[in-house]
């Protein structure tokens, strides 16, 4: 019953790659939206905003993604609501990504010197304006490398969704390997596909960082 590894198997893997990409995009976009809200809460002056955000981040950073996947997939199932693997994976990865992005971006915002806030405040800009015009544009540049770094992790991490039966690239590889029994070919190929997705992202990060930093000529004294 062992089949040959043929073009159709290769095609099957590529089809599954779409789901890896789609899950990554959903998790990144959803994680960005939720994560940014968490970032804003995390840097807020009010304790009532800061504390829930901190708790949220700690919980999702401090528990294995695998448990989050299981809890959402099986846990919600126990409540009588049937969730498809795709939905469960999308939710779990979004929550997971949001916690990490929130923490990465908080660090980037706090890396901007206090004097920048004060300069903006002294010009009578409101809090939202200080953020939007002065702090965030500078934090954005700082944020590019760690954000893309996390995105690469996230993309590779989607392979974990295979454990709840979501057929993405890794799950498809298992399926193909089970019928062709050519692990070397299959997994080397899959690794190559992951690489071909991640590498351009890193390149993009370099380009983006350089472009956002075009105003940063060699430092002149006194600039803090």
């Amino acid at each position, binding site marked *: 019953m062992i089949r040959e590894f043929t073009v159709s198997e290769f095609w099957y893997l590529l089809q599954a790659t779409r789901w890896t990409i789609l899950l990554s995009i959903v998790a990144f976009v959803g994680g960005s939206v939720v994560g940014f809200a968490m970032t804003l809460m995390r840097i807020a002056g009010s304790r009532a905003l800061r504390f829930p955000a901190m708790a949220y981040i700690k919980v999702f950073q401090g528990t294995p993604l695998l448990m989050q996947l299981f809890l959402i997939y099986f846990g919600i199932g126990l409540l009588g609501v049937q969730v498809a693997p795709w939905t469960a994976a999308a939710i779990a990865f979004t929550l997971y990504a949001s916690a990490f992005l929130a923490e990465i971006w908080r660090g980037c915002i706090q890396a901007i010197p206090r*004097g*920048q806030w*004060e*300069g*903006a*405040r*002294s*010009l*009578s*800009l*409101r809090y939202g*304006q200080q953020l939007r*015009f*002065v702090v965030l*544009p*500078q934090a954005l*540049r700082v944020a590019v490398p760690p954000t893309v770094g996390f995105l690469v992790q996230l993309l590779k991490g989607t392979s974990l969704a295979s454990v709840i039966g979501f057929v993405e690239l890794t799950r498809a590889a298992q399926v193909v390997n089970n019928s062709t029994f050519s692990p070397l070919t299959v997994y080397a190929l899959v690794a190559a596909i992951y690489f071909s997705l991640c590498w351009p992202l890193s390149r993009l990060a370099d380009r983006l960082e350089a472009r956002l930093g075009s*105003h*940063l*000529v*060699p*430092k*002149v*004294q*006194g*600039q*803090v």
Partner: protein
Amino acid sequence: MNDPSARPPPTKAVAVEMAGVSKWFGSFQALKDIDLTVLQGERIVICGPSGSGKSTLIRCINRLERHESGRMVVDGIELAADSRRDEEVRREVGMVFQHFNLFPHMTILENCTLAPIQVRKQSRSEAEATAMRYLERVRIPEQAGKYPGQLSGGQQQRVAIARSLCMQPRIMLFDEPTSALDPEMIREVLDVMVDLAEDGMTMLVVSHEMGFARQVADRVVFMDGGRIVEESAPDAFFRSPRHERTKAFLSQILR
């Protein structure tokens, strides 16, 4: 430096009034029972050893710090414990910092037009025209398209002054504006400040530039340990300081 027609005629109205103002950082009391009245058009130089509370004092005026007791009125606005009127006060009070605090991701012109456009709701062209006028006053109109990182420290500080002036403030605060500058750049910044003083701007300047104090100050305020120790006209202040602490301080900085 201001358009005289747009201003009320010079009066002896009070610009800043502080009565019994105190401020703590945790258990450290940074300001102790400060009484200070500054009239419109007055130039005050505040000096004193580091940690004496001089920066804190002027930062309370534009609400970068909040005073905790006492009464403060700035440009007719009574400042209470809450922050509701912070932006209102800051619209009328400009501030220049030791480290300039220019926005490095914006050009000089964008630095100068951001607040007038966002806060004063000026049109871009109006804000740019005003900005160019002030950049000319601080003698660097040709740098308008550059980024702060491309300018020298002295040039950056002059941009910072122009940026504040673009909001057309009625009071200007300077927090050690020349302390971070190389010696040869101090003069160009002080020249701009003298120019501004001669124009009748109300100024509170934290500085150890005693030459500047002599030249333009109406009063010199000496602070130590969070208190105002001595306050007098520059002549009297330098020739015959009354307090021992002042004498010791002056003998150290006027070597």
